[in-house]
């Protein structure tokens, strides 16, 4: 368990305030655009398409006009105790000791999809097809993220290249330490209502370390022991109850 604490390095995490999330989808689009994610002609095929950050839509189950819709953006949870890592036979996915981010090396991946089976959050996607950037759209591909090939698994990296970008900038300015918010993933930057807070969970000065102490903070499927570094916040009890598989009467 000591390994998970990762007390020396950074432990990047995210808090998503579901009361602030309006379901606009910008995080998904910013992510796709930042990370050279390919687009299928039929994106409605959710078993074949690729999205590093998917949005789930849930309702409180009440009848009209008491119905309420809530959206849950789901990036990779970057678990402190990741179920995907030990199952990889090719050592293609690891937990980075410096950042706590779960890496995925596409050139190393053999496409067995054990990690996908192991991940309880469906955060990973498999390239069933060659990446599709047809007719000129390969011109917007960013060299900061390597495009994937058919037959490998990919997933959210917390925009790791943005960490490298921020570090290079800091180095250019003669600094080694990053300021808060100097490195944020594309989805955090894009969120128009600032529903997502990003930072170092090991740094008590970062806003996020305070936010996760809130009584409204929770994680998805917390009782599996995966220790996700992506937290959610909501004042709605019905929503919190949805975050894990509780027996009747068990929640609160």
């Amino acid at each position, binding site marked *: 368990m000591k390994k998970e604490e990762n007390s020396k390095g950074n432990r990047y995490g995210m808090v998503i305030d579901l009361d602030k999330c309006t379901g606009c989808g910008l995080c998904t689009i910013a992510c796709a655009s930042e990370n050279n994610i390919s687009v299928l*002609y039929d994106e409605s095929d959710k078993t074949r398409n690729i999205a590093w950050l998917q949005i789930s839509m849930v309702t409180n189950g009440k009848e009209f006009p008491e119905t309420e819709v809530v959206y849950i953006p789901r990036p990779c949870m970057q678990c402190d105790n990741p179920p995907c890592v030990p199952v990889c036979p090719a050592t293609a996915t690891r937990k980075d000791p410096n950042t706590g981010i779960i890496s995925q090396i596409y050139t190393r991946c053999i496409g067995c999809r054990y990690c996908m089976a192991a991940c309880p959050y469906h955060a990973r996607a498999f390239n069933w097809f060659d990446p599709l950037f047809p007719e000129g759209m390969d011109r917007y591909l960013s060299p900061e993220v390597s495009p994937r090939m058919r037959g490998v698994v990919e997933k959210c990296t917390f925009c790791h290249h943005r960490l490298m970008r921020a570090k290079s900038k800091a180095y250019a300015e003669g600094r080694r330490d990053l300021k808060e918010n100097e490195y944020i993933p594309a989805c955090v930057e894009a969120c128009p209502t600032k529903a997502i807070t990003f930072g170092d969970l090991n740094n008590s000065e970062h806003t996020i370390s305070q936010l996760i102490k809130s009584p409204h903070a929770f994680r998805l499927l917390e009782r599996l022991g995966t220790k996700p570094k992506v937290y959610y916040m909501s004042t709605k009890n019905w929503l919190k109850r949805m975050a894990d598989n509780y027996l009747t009467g068990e929640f609160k």
Partner: protein
Amino acid sequence: MEFNRRNFLKFVAGGLGGTLLSPLPWKLIDDIAIWTQNWAWVPVPERGKFSYIKTVCTLCPGACGIQVRKVGSRAVKIEGRSEYPVNQGAICPLGMAGLQTLYNEGIRWKAPMKRVGPRGSEKWKEISWDEALDTLTTRIKGLRDKGVPEELAAIDGNQSRSTMALLIKRLLSSIGSPNYLRMPQEEDTHTMVNFLMQGINGPLAFDLENTDFILSFGCGLLDGWGFPGSMLSVWRHWISDEQKKHKTHVVQVDPRASNTASKADIWLAPFPGTEAALALGIAHVIIKEKLYSKEFIENHCFGFYDWFDEKGVEHKGFSGIVLGKYSPANVEIITGIKRRVIIEVARKFASAHAPIALAGRGKGTFPGSLYEFMAVYALNALKGRINTKGGTLITDDVPLAPWAEVEYDSVANNGLTKERLDRAGTSQYPFTRSLIHKFTEAINGNQSSPVDTLLLCSANPVYTIPDNQSFIQALAKIPFIVSLSPFMDETSMMADMILPDHSHLEKMIDIVRPTGIQYPLYALSQPVVKPLYSTRHSGDVIISLAKRIGGSVAGSFQWANFEEAVKERVSGLYDAGKSKVSWEDITKNGYWYTPSHSFGEWTDIFKTPSRKFEFFSTEIELALKAYSKGLRPVGAYALEGKSFDDTLLDLGIRSKGDEVYMPHYEELKSSGDKNQYPLLFLPIEFINLASGWIGSPPFLNKTLFDHQLTKDDLFVEVNPKTASQYRLAEGSRAILQSSKGELSVRIHLFDGAMPGVIFVPFGLGHTAYDKYLKGKGVNPNEIIDPIEDPLSGQPVWWNTRVKVIKA
């Protein structure tokens, strides 16, 4: 020595040993491993210098500041500009995916094209720009030679105040055609309200940033309403942690649990089309409980109390009518909202520090109902929220320098005396500037088309206008259609010639006072990348066209190119603000504005005939009476009584008496019969699905749920109770049939949908564009059977009735 089997084996063994002692196998394994990673068809993005170009997104009139990240000469990512006054970092999904409109070769015209097959056969031949411009010039010159310049028409989707729109309008005027049509939008209705109640000819503005209570009558504030980037940034401000102490409360009126309704503090769901009654019910409570602003009502309003005209005739005031007709009990019957809730919301609205009542529908892409918008706006007046901080604002225009007057020759003068084909601005539709469905009717109602040549600019009416099938019929009759669209959209597929524009990131273009923004702001975009194809800026095309036509037309276009035309207007800004600015400053920043608002005195700001805020609109009175006069010979017309009421029925106004000059509730009869078509068909809009003239980019498809689109099937939202009446289950296939046609859809059961209503999203069902869009889902416009909104004449698109047939 014999090379026998034994020795051969020795040779092989030696060879094997030698090979193992050489680097060959190890090196080969390593190289092959790398070789397996090199798939020629997996793109390797080219590296280069990273840079950011700051500009403005002009995909809609919202004018969000964006910065485009570039690698070398390629644009790779669009982000919001946090220092831009309009949107402060927030942009909308379409803007974020803007690179897919730039680089997607499958949707862009790459050069001027001439149709070679029959219309719609999509057979094209590339032509030179010279040939294209010559063809059009000859055509227009021919019309002028025949003395029928009015047979040239243009449909323009550019923002009405932008330089592009001004140029196109100027071209038509100088040629001599009054038939300059604009795509309908919600701002049209707001502008009419502003004119009728405040006497000001311009869009309404709302100080949303400083309000603490929003009463939204259907505006999809979080569903892409009006100016999504700026709206989202305002919402962020409302809910920010710093704002928690005086949080902005949102009351959303919506027939469906939309994103906005779900995030609102109170959600009200009246029967669609009864929003005006709800507003007046709230007004009733405010008036009855004397919660209105006495200072404003008593000193600066006309028509609130009963009054006498100069002939001594008594007229009912707004308060009298509202108190008489719109009691919460009555309104409950009309709207289905409990009287208790109406009273509660009215009190909350009245007791808020800075409340705003906002009329609108969905994204605000289409016009609203005039009387309804007036009724909602009246709530602002009741609380004296006109031109105050956190209220509605009466803003100055952007002080752009005017161009020289248009030069008219005799042909032009003669042409301009002809009546517009859509009859907008005539005594029948006195307050409306453009009526595209009447234009359609005028063409379809004639044996031969009264339009010879049609220009289309930044518009895709074949896809976007309600009842698009009638429009398609009209297009088929027009002899020559020219599209200036950069995209292979539905309308350009019906054209005879394409003069493709640059895409938004390849050109400079301006937006003057972005929709809904609370201060005079001028936004100017910058080219981010060099034009990829042989396209031309439509502004330059218009100018060179005018020059080719020659004479007074050329005389009206003295600029060498579009940039010069913009520069001339912008020159008015250099000294207009607090500090001097230059052209370079404005192009660098991408904007010019005066942030502080001068709140004029209530005594000075209203430009109505009474110089007051008018609950009783003198302009409407003058217009209706003038219309009645125009119908009958002198002396035989009536200005009141039964004959007058019958005249009003022509205009769709069913109310009688003084009410017709005031905000009131008109029950809009649907064109479909309730027994035959028992369900209401209500198009809805999603922020993450572009439904305007620009097709939704592929990235947006990633955000659609599979209960919205699965393969090519569009899902419509139906309340489970309604669905069970028709034995429809989740995923059932069904046919929606209206008097205009039918759509094949699948059913999604949604608790948040009002019973008896079928909600169908706008934005899918394209018949053009590429494989990412074409053929996915259906387009609600195909079966909308619009009726005319009373007085404004705008098409009512939310009132179609349908029946469901289980497929």
